[in-house]
């Protein structure tokens, strides 16, 4: 039996270097590996190349911390809890990070191609938009499409035609090949089998496209337990390089079957971090001034976490206040 390497959050974050290309599990404000995201910011990582199907609160935090060199994606915001990734906007407007816009389907195509070992994936999606405007090729305009960076394709996309059946015009979207995929999963076996409950988002494509994978698990469980129902598992062990057991590791985002999105926390973050000064003060309180994930959980407090805990049958919390009348 192969035991995947168990390391600490701090050690794992230390493996990721300035300038590395990274991606994450999850979707907007769901199942993001925040314990690692906080630790990367705490360790002062810079010039990261974040490529992701969509962004979320974590993208905005990286931007606020000045940790991003390049962000390739399609969206940044906080869903219901903040209409805009205000730090992403501020940094992009100031030219302090490069933003390469694709559409949602384009980004899924990028990771699908990466996961299949293909150089590109074809699609009809988002033809006739400014996403394809040759003047808006941000990485090309920055002179970064010369082939010298193995994480940056020589073209943002290519026009293509097909005559296999009806003649058609489509796009070839280049593969994403991140150095790292960092995952928050509900369950990981001791050997590394990953089980994701609920929506899989684009986890399978993100994981399989990456060169190395770090999994933060709500629970590390006996491998044999997951192998009793293999049809429910998503990823075999040989894709997984490091395992860390981090309960509540996705807070303030939610984990299906485990806990709810902490909307109040995210909304407070959004309201307080619209300026750089506001972000710096927030980050001092919740990232730099906090030593560890355990200290972060203690600061949140048991009653707050308990209100977020999922009902075991419904798979989400029925105790958290969500609206004006609940």
């Amino acid at each position, binding site marked *: 039996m192969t035991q995947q390497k168990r390391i600490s959050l701090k050690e794992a974050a230390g493996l990721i270097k300035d300038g590395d290309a990274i991606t994450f599990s999850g979707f907007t404000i769901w199942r993001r590996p925040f314990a690692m995201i906080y630790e990367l910011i705490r360790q002062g990582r810079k010039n990261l190349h974040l490529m992701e199907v969509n962004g979320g609160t974590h993208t905005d935090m990286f931007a606020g911390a000045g940790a991003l060199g390049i962000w390739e994606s399609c*969206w940044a915001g906080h869903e219901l809890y903040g209409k805009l990734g205000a730090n992403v906007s501020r940094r*992009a407007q100031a*030219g302090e990070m490069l933003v390469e816009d694709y559409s*949602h389907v384009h980004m899924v195509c990028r990771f699908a191609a990466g996961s299949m070992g293909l150089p590109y994936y074809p699609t009809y999606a*988002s033809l006739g938009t400014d996403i394809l405007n040759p003047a808006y090729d941000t990485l090309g305009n920055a002179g970064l499409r010369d082939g010298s960076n193995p994480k940056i394709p020589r073209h943002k996309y290519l026009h293509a035609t097909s005559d296999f059946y*009806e003649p058609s015009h489509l796009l070839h979207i280049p593969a994403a090949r991140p150095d790292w995929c960092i995952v928050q999963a509900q369950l990981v076996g001791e050997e590394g089998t990953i089980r994701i409950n609920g929506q899989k*988002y684009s986890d399978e494509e993100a994981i399989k496209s990456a060169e190395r994978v770090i999994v933060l698990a709500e629970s590390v469980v006996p491998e044999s337990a997951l192998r009793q129902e293999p049809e429910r598992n998503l990823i075999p062990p040989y894709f997984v390089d490091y395992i860390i057991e981090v309960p509540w590791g996705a807070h303030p985002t939610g984990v299906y*079957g485990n806990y709810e999105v902490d909307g109040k926390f995210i909304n407070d973050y959004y309201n307080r971090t619209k300026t750089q000064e506001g972000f710096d003060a927030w980050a001092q309180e919740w990232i730099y001034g906090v030593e560890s994930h355990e200290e972060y959980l203690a600061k949140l407090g048991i009653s707050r976490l308990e209100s977020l805990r999922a009902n075991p049958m*419904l798979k989400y919390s*029925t105790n958290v206040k969500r609206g004006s009348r609940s």
Partner: protein
Amino acid sequence: MTKLAPGEYKTIDLLAVAAAREVNDRDIVFAGTGLPMLAILLAQATQAPDAVCIYEAGTVDGRPVHLPTSVGDARCVYQSSVTSGLFDVFNQLQRGKVDLAFLGGAEIDQYGNVNTTAIGGYAPTPKLRLTGSGGNPDINALAKRTVFIMVQEKRRFKERVDYITSPGWRIPRWPSGELVHKREVYGDKFRGGVSAVITDMAVFRFDEEGIMYLDTVHPGFTPEDVLNNVSFDLNISRCRGVTEPPTQEEIDLLYHKIDPEGIFLK
């Protein structure tokens, strides 16, 4: 059915009701966070009980007992036919399975092109960076009909949007960028496009050339009010009259069955 008068309902109620009425029974509907969720759930509770809802994060035909607050929400999964992920549901969209989708935007132009990316210039740095495209352009490109729900303001209804995030009826053909009919760009993958724009003042539709016209004004507004809140030469000659107001039954469904917690309907 008791039709309500202005003052007996809120603007957001009318938006949800007007959007819900765009759903035909058995439609396969792609919905995003917020008002689209209210619209599809209201439609399923009224004229379209067999409409199917796909949430873009990866759930198909869920039967949520609590209102989801985003498409990634665990509540979307409850009693779904299939729970998968983005690759699956967007492939279904590309395959042509989606009849209708609800979308939003910061700016729209007379051709139905929508901007959710940047205001006042994009390169080399954006003047005002917005959220970005999300799935908006993919869905707008590949669904048979789309309905936009937007705020009516002069600065948002423009002759030409600053950045075409989402393709309307006349769109750039690259690399030249000349504006041509959507049919010419999509070829045999052309399935339709923007069918209606619903704002806090009116409902708009598009003519055979793909140009926006005023279809109905909401109770309490006139076509002139609408003209004062668009910055292009809007055709009001085809206006059919007043948008059907909500009924008491629809309001009761919205506030007591669909969003009793007051998540979107405060």
